[in-house]
């Protein structure tokens, strides 16, 4: 299919025991999109992200990324296809420095072998250099120079979120999935984080954001999908979604 | 011979169940792997020995004294050592190892190296159909073990203390919000586990002999059982105890002692690899 879509989710269903978390959800994201996924608590948003990133395998349906089916692949393989994700609760390597955190995201990390690490061969040195260069790039990009050597646990919450994004973008992903990146942030921090995300999008990275913060989603997203109790109830531009009666009903209740 | 093996398996299973009960309870409530279990078993056996053979109390009075005294000892250990470190799993584990070494070492000092014996008051031999025989003391110890286990079920399932323990087990913080003092509940749980270990020592050691290391073999068996049954799963450990009893009996009779030993640990590894929640675990 020679379309512009980078991620296609087709008829994905997921049950936990008797509980239906997702039922027959389909949508697709196009290259360069700033795509939003919203829905009330328990709508199945996080389950959706976990299915896409390979943490759960769906009971039914398929996920295609960049023209290739990724359902059933190991999570680390999916990531290496060029898809990155962050986690809802700011998840970092808290005892490592910011620089080390970001290094962990760099793709070349996966190529390091044990023997070359011990012997410090020239190939190991060049890989080391590639990793260090790329992490420096990310640090510059996110404006973390000041905090680069600081231990992640000591950073303010907003910066921790940015470091998490840094880990995710270090491998230069084609698609970045952000699972509620704004939870627990104060207004100034929200702007800072969303600013970084928007500029990544402007540089051509496809963004897929799951968020509760309506204002941010409506302001930045180009297209939005709404989930409710595991069903897709709406899809469209922010304006359409805001007017959609189903959406209003599911958010406000009856 | 089959009958005899089956009877032996049942008796061993009951003994193992009793020995494992305290261990599984402590894991269930505190998520603490108690390496000092064997030492509390030994202390129970030693206490019974001193009470009966040295002081001269009747056997069941001595056992009753164990039930009265060991909750205090258990609570003291919990308060003194384990309370502050129980949230770090490794610290908890190693601390129990420390208590084990310390108490067994002191045991060799105080009790000496000569093995001692406590005799069970009921003796005799019961002949069963199929040519099997069952010593009366083993029958009684087995029956008492089952009664104690029933008591544990009642205590955990039906009493206020049991409700507290279960609440703390599931979520200590939520239990605190409900007005349960988690610290105190855990101390009670630990004391209960220690008492069960000591009681097992007082009962089971009458079948064998008493010395400062007499708890190590029972503890090894108890560990196999609680892993097979799923850590902290009381019903699972009861079933696992009988499984191990039959493995030891049939394996030992048909294949020799070492084979039974090997099979026990082999089963443990298989269970841990393929079903870490144990034979009764869900998932």
């Amino acid at each position, binding site marked *: 299919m020679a379309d512009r879509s980078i991620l296609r989710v087709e008829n994905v269903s997921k049950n936990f025991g008797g509980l239906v978390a997702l039922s027959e959800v389909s949508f697709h994201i196009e290259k360069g999109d700033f795509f939003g996924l919203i829905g009330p608590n328990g709508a199945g948003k996080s389950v959706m992200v976990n299915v896409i990133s390979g943490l759960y395998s769906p009971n039914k349906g398929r996920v295609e990324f960049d023209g290739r089916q990724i359902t059933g692949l190991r*999570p*680390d393989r999916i*990531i*290496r296809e060029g898809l*990155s*994700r962050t*986690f809802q609760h700011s*998840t*970092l*390597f808290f005892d*490592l420095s910011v620089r*080390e955190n970001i*290094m*962990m995201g760099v*793709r070349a*990390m*996966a190529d*390091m*072998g*044990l023997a070359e*690490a*011990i012997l410090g061969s020239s190939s*190991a040195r060049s*890989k*080391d250099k590639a990793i260090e260069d790329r992490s420096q790039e990310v640090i510059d990009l996110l404006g973390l120079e000041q905090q680069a050597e600081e231990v992640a646990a000591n950073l303010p919450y907003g910066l921790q979120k940015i470091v998490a994004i840094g*880990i*995710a973008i270090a*491998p230069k992903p084609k698609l970045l999935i952000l699972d509620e990146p704004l939870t627990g942030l104060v207004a100034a921090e929200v702007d800072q984080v969303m600013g970084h995300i928007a500029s990544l999008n402007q540089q051509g990275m496809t963004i897929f954001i799951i968020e509760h913060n309506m204002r941010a989603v409506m302001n930045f997203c180009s297209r939005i999908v709404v989930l409710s109790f595991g069903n897709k109830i709406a899809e469209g531009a922010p304006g359409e979604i805001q007017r959609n009666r189903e959406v209003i009903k599911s958010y406000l209740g009856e | 011979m089959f009958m005899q093996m089956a009877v032996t398996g049942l008796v061993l299973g009951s003994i193992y169940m009793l020995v494992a009960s305290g261990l599984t309870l402590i894991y269930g409530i505190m998520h603490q792997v108690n390496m000092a279990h064997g030492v509390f078993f030994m202390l129970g056996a030693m206490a019974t020995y001193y009470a009966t053979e040295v002081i001269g109390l009747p056997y069941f009075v001595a056992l009753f004294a164990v039930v009265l005294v060991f909750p205090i000892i258990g609570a003291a250990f919990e308060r003194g*050592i384990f309370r502050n*470190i129980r949230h770090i*799993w490794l*610290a908890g584990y*190693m*601390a129990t*190892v*420390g*208590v*084990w*070494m*310390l*108490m067994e*070492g*002191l045991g*060799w*000092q105080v009790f000496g190296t000569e093995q001692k014996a406590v005799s069970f008051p009921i003796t005799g031999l019961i002949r069963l159909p199929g040519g099997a025989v069952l010593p009366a003391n083993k029958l009684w110890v087995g029956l008492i073990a089952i009664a104690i286990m029933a008591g544990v079920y009642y205590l955990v399932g039906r009493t206020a203390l049991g409700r507290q323990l279960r609440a703390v087990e599931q979520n200590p913080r939520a239990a605190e919000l409900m007005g349960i003092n988690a610290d105190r509940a855990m101390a009670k749980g630990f004391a209960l586990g220690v008492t069960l270990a000591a009681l097992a020592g007082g009962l089971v050691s009458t079948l064998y002999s008493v010395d400062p290391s007499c708890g190590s073999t029972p503890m090894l068996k108890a*560990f*196999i059982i609680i*892993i097979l049954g799923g*850590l902290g799963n009381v019903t699972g450990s009861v079933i696992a105890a009988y499984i191990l009893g039959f493995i030891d009996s049939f394996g030992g009779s048909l294949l*020799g002692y*070492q*084979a039974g*030993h*090997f099979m026990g*640990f082999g089963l*443990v*590894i298989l269970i*841990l*690899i393929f079903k*870490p929640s144990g034979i009764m675990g869900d998932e």
Partner: protein
Amino acid sequence: MNSRLAPYLTALAVMAALALVPPLIKFIAPDKWELTAHIGIKILLNVGFGLCLWMMLQAGELSLGQGGFITIGAYTTGILVAKYNLISVVWLGYLAGALAAAVIALMLGYLIVHLKRIFFLLVTWSFAEMLHPVLTSFEHPFGGAMGIIDIPAPEGLTLFSESWTGYYYLALIYGFAVLWIVWRIAGSKVGLITKSIGQNDTLVTFCGLYVRKYKVMIFVLGCFITGIGGGILASYLTAISPETFTFFTSLDIIMFNLIGGMGTMAGPIVGAVILSGLNEYLFAAGYWRMVVYGLIIIFFITLLPGGMVSLPAALRKRFTRKTKKQEVGLG
């Protein structure tokens, strides 16, 4: 001084200092040499074992089966070079022992690597326990309850007038080789990955790294190195039996890390030095050994959880707190 060379130079200096111990002691107190050598050998081998476990600990899991891997290394060496004389070069016997330990670690590790914490601890412990009945039950090839005797010293050790010196230098090289390997890994990107796995393995997965591979890799490497140590011990002891390396051997290796402190590489080294030295003296104390052991464990767990390496910091904290209190009292 070039900053890259500094650690190497320091290590070399310490190694050279330790290498000078034999002639020095033989000069000042020749009658004490054997005892010193014996303790030194034990310490240096244990430093290796402790560091291997520390390396695995970085990935978050604690093995209580290292005694089992020492046993595998020792037995493989013993069977091949002593019992059946299949290998005439003892050094190759060590290599075979290490390979056997690594292969078994690979198979076991692949199966158990998904287990965490207490489950990993229990499964490695069960594995080590299971070796005992196997070794005891089979006269061939394991030698049954008797074990294996007359395990020869490696070639080249005869260059030294008495075997103590030879084994001392062998253990010295072993200890520092392990130190070098573990230090190199800890400083490398693989070390960073290992440390990250210990903190948050899900996130490592979502960095595109296959956690299982790294955990197994570290486990296998640790067991390989431990296996070599087992071979050396087999030669040194000249005889091994199923009871030679027990649960307590594995426990000791954990205790090196516990007593020294798990935070830095210095921890297991300091722990191994203190505990294995102490252990040798406690042999004479006989039955007080367990009491002392128990007290040490309880002391470190409850009062100094950061281990010996945290002692200066802990003292400083204590001291400053006290002076502060005094100031308040005076004010």
